[in-house]
């Protein structure tokens, strides 16, 4: 069994669940960069926020547009869905060991309008495609302040 502890924080009076993941895109001039993701099963995809795209040094304008679901409405703003191909994600298990998950592509949010200051509040999200591809189950038990990902070996 592989178990990845998640972080629970109260930021608006309720528990939210986050994961620290290091992102290593291949094919762009970038290096592995740790990012905090909000675990969001309301999102079909893992998506990198504009703020974190800057941190990752992703050349967002050079990324291809998604063929399907080109536009995302997120936190009241519209974004183009760009695709970052062949990306490694590194997570730490409960023993602190690093686990690598490779995704064929992950979504990157490109604002459709001039970037407003509101984008600084928009987090990167860990969506359903990550769970499907990695085969992790999500356990979120806020009343016991516990959250983790797990899968059978």
């Amino acid at each position: 069994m592989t178990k990845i502890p998640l972080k629970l924080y109260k930021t608006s009076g309720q528990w939210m669940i986050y994961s620290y993941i290091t992102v290593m895109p291949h094919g762009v001039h970038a290096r592995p960069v740790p990012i905090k993701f909000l675990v969001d099963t309301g999102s079909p995809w893992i998506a990198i926020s504009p703020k974190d795209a800057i941190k990752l040094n992703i050349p967002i304008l050079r990324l291809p547009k998604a063929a399907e679901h080109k536009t995302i409405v997120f936190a009241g703003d519209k974004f183009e869905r760009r695709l970052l191909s062949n990306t490694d994600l590194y997570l730490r298990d409960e023993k602190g060991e690093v686990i690598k998950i490779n995704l064929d592509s992950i979504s990157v949010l490109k604002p459709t309008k001039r970037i407003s200051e509101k984008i600084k509040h928009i987090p990167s999200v860990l969506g359903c495609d990550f769970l499907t591809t990695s085969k992790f189950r999500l356990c979120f038990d806020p009343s016991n302040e516990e959250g983790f990902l797990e899968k059978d070996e």
Partner: protein
Amino acid sequence: MKQVSTTEIKLSMERFEKDGDWFCDRFNEFQKKYAGKVIAVKNQKIIGVTTKLDDLLKKIRSRGEDPADVYIDSIPEKGVAYIL
């Protein structure tokens, strides 16, 4: 491009998680002081607080730091919560 070892990734993640946990443990305190701001944390210390993200990135770079190595987070305006 320089190859990065798993050990380096692990150390970088440990540092980032420490800073992230430090920030989140103090979120309520920071919410009172820094509503609407964006904050940079390194080694469990605030190294920059600005209103605009661009200004924070400039501040980080002016210290000779790479934003990739810094924990950056934001505090919503008072009374505002985000539902995604």
